[in-house]
């Protein structure tokens, strides 16, 4: 590698501080989760799995975890089902209202989640949907579909339309072209979009806060309201469990889908 392409000592020190800043709160949460005290403390003068065991004794948290998993699976899958046709329409067709559609589909990225939450609570409460699972799914669909759309569109962009034309000229009808050619080729983008959408849904707090009910409380909402009342090491152990889950997912994911491509939708790093 070129000499000037290497980082100087100052740059590496900067990077060290930066990385420490990014990791500090996460590392601290994990450490605190192993304390044996009844309050937030480091485990250096007494460590235990007491607070990890306590997760199982709090059915509310376990229940919320299931709610979040179900919500993530359902909304990510539905999001794929609406984003793929939309991406196809935008990438492969020229029609009136195409720009409006494209702008509308990514607009939730620009809209404050508090505003979305307020709007959905107002609207859904008129139909008894506030606090229901379908209501939460609909809200999450709007939040996560922009990410899904971005990755699916990137996949379509990387697909030469002439490949589809070649299949058509060989006698394939439109459905066959989609099933045999388009879908397999955008599958990496679709899978990446699904995972990103799932994680975004799983982590979503603000909109859910407005729409959650005692029977359907996603895990971030449960944590937030719990912290609002008290900060005990149970919050730390639940948080640490979430960090651990995300880390494993991330390491597995990075093997076949580099994180920068996942998060930016760029076709190459």
């Amino acid at each position, binding site marked *: 590698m070129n000499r000037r392409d290497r980082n100087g000592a100052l740059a590496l020190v900067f990077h060290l501080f930066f990385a420490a800043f990014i990791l500090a709160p996460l590392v601290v949460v994990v450490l605190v989760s192993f304390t044996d005290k009844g309050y937030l403390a480091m485990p250096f003068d007494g460590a235990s799995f007491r607070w990890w065991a306590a997760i199982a004794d709090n059915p509310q948290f376990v229940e919320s975890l299931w709610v979040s998993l179900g919500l993530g699976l359902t909304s990510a899958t539905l999001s794929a089902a609406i984003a793929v046709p939309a991406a196809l329409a935008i990438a492969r067709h020229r029609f009136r209202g195409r720009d409006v559609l494209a702008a509308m589909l990514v607009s939730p990225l620009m809209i404050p989640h508090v505003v979305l939450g307020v709007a959905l609570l107002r609207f859904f409460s008129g139909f008894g949907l506030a606090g229901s699972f379908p209501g939460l799914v609909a809200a999450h669909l709007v939040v996560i579909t922009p990410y899904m759309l971005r990755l699916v569109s990137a996949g379509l962009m990387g697909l030469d339309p002439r*490949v589809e034309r070649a299949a058509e000229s060989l006698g394939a009808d439109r459905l066959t072209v989609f099933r045999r050619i388009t879908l397999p080729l955008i599958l990496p983008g679709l899978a990446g979009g699904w995972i990103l959408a799932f994680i975004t849904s799983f982590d979503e707090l603000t909109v859910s806060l407005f729409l959650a009910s005692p029977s359907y409380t996603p895990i971030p909402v449960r944590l937030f309201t719990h912290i609002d009342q008290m900060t005990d090491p149970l919050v730390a152990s639940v948080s640490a469990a979430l960090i651990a889950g995300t880390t494993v997912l991330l390491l597995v994911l990075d093997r076949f889908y580099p994180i920068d491509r996942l998060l930016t939708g760029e076709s190459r790093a």
Partner: protein
Amino acid sequence: MRPGYLVLDGVAKRYGPITAVQGVSIEVARGEFLGLLGPSGCGKTTTLQMIAGFETPSEGRIVLDGQDLADTPPARRGIGLVFQSYALFPHMTAAENVAFGLEMRRVPRAERARRVAEALDLVHLSHLADRFPRNMSGGQQQRVALARALVIEPQLLLLDEPLSNLDAKLREEMQVELRELQRRVGVTTILVTHDQQEAMALCDRVAVMQAGRVMQVDEPWRAYEVPADGFVADFLGRSNRLPARAANGMAEAAGRRFALPPELAGARGEVMLTIRPERLRIEPEDAGALPGRVHSRVFLGASWLYRVDTALGPMMVTAQNTGAPPVEEGARVSLAWDPHSLRQLEAA
């Protein structure tokens, strides 16, 4: 007139106010190899897309084997397509790529396997049947694309710049191979290209296009020798211009008089004459018709290309490399030619 197997009759394509193709009428005989030749943006690819059915003509008819194609979707036209990018299915092996069209035609498995093997054999790729496109060279991908298009026994084979992604040497090899293959299979073929060498090497006839129009349809050598206009003359190869004044079978330019060929004996007044560089000869200073000075020279291996500055402007001259030392740059020379090599261009 040749019998029209494929007939384009007054075909035009407009995108809003932009006219991409206008008034294109071509007849292609069964088994013929026709080149659509022109610079980029001349409408040749749009014409090809209309034949394939991916674009709908704004005007005119396209008739294949007596049947108007207007209402036939691309999937049912039975036309083999080879793209510049090859457009191979990246998630399928070579054999699976070739088999795809047969699958769509519900050809039974055993027959399918046999025909795929035959098609791969035809393009000398039997040994790479199970390889994925990304693990093949450009030339190999090119052959898979050909096999995939030919295996469905198309009524018509359309080639869109099929060789332009290959390096020069491979391109020449593939030209020979493609020509032989087309002869052997006998499929009517249309080749779109911007490379006049390629069109002239491969095609029975070429249609030279410019700005959406067909300027000339002719056998390559005829189009080269008797170009319809200055554009065709320049596009098919280098040519020199001699603006002159004609009278009584003679022409006068820059104070020199020279003979016109018999077919131009009737020319009168201002004329634009043209001559190919290989028809000019470099002679000693006093021997030729047009004196000049060698400005520069380029060695091309088989020949030398000279630029000679004359009173009529710079002239390009190609001279066979005979092994003798070339004429020095700066040397005073004169140019000579056979009157039969002169052509007259229509006034633009």
